[in-house]
């Protein structure tokens, strides 16, 4: 049976969005079935243009820190969040948007990127998590 992994993404900050997507894409490449559950502020990353807006949790300095980090990342050829998401999807990663949070923040289905597989809640998450060997909260 294939190994499984879930990641709950709570934050819309760049320094959390990156590890979540790197782990998801890397795990999928290693043959692990991955489910990502985006909830609360994490949901912002699933809005159209949301990945591009992700800020640093520290040293953001009104965007200056983020620009510096992005420049360093470009120099080192670090993949963009958009590429990581696209690769993750190609390798079969499932993306769930928390339907309850959408209601709380008034987020519509139309405002989300098409990579979202499901709008769902704790039941859908747990169905995957209870089968998984690796369950992370980022």
């Amino acid at each position, binding site marked *: 049976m294939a190994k499984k992994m879930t990641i709950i993404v709570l934050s819309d900050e760049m320094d959390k969005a990156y590890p979540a997507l790197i782990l998801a894409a890397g795990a999928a490449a290693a043959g692990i079935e991955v489910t990502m559950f985006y909830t609360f502020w994490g949901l912002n990353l699933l809005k159209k243009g949301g990945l591009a807006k992700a800020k640093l949790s520290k040293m953001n300095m009104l965007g200056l820190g983020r620009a510096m980090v992005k420049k360093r990342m470009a120099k080192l050829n670090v*993949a963009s969040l958009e590429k990581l998401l696209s690769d993750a999807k190609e390798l079969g990663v499932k993306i769930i948007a928390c339907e309850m949070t959408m209601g709380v923040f008034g987020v519509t289905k139309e405002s989300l990127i098409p990579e979202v597989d499901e709008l769902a809640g704790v039941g859908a998450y747990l169905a995957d998590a209870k089968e998984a060997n690796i369950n992370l909260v980022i």
Partner: protein
Amino acid sequence: MDADEILDIKGQTCPVPLVETRKKLNKMESGKILQVIGNHGPSKKEVSDVMKDLGHEILEISEEGENWSIFLRKK
């Protein structure tokens, strides 16, 4: 050794070598040989270990300067 396909991922860093190798293998037929060429140090071991774990056969691993090369046969 002759490869059916070559994947050049020099200049790419974590997790791209792993991800691109898997994407490439997914598009290849069983039994075909892929050569992966990269220069991200940790990925040499990571790519070969993970692909071996997935059941693909590692045929040859070599290094030349900062570049490494892995030949593998798709399961």
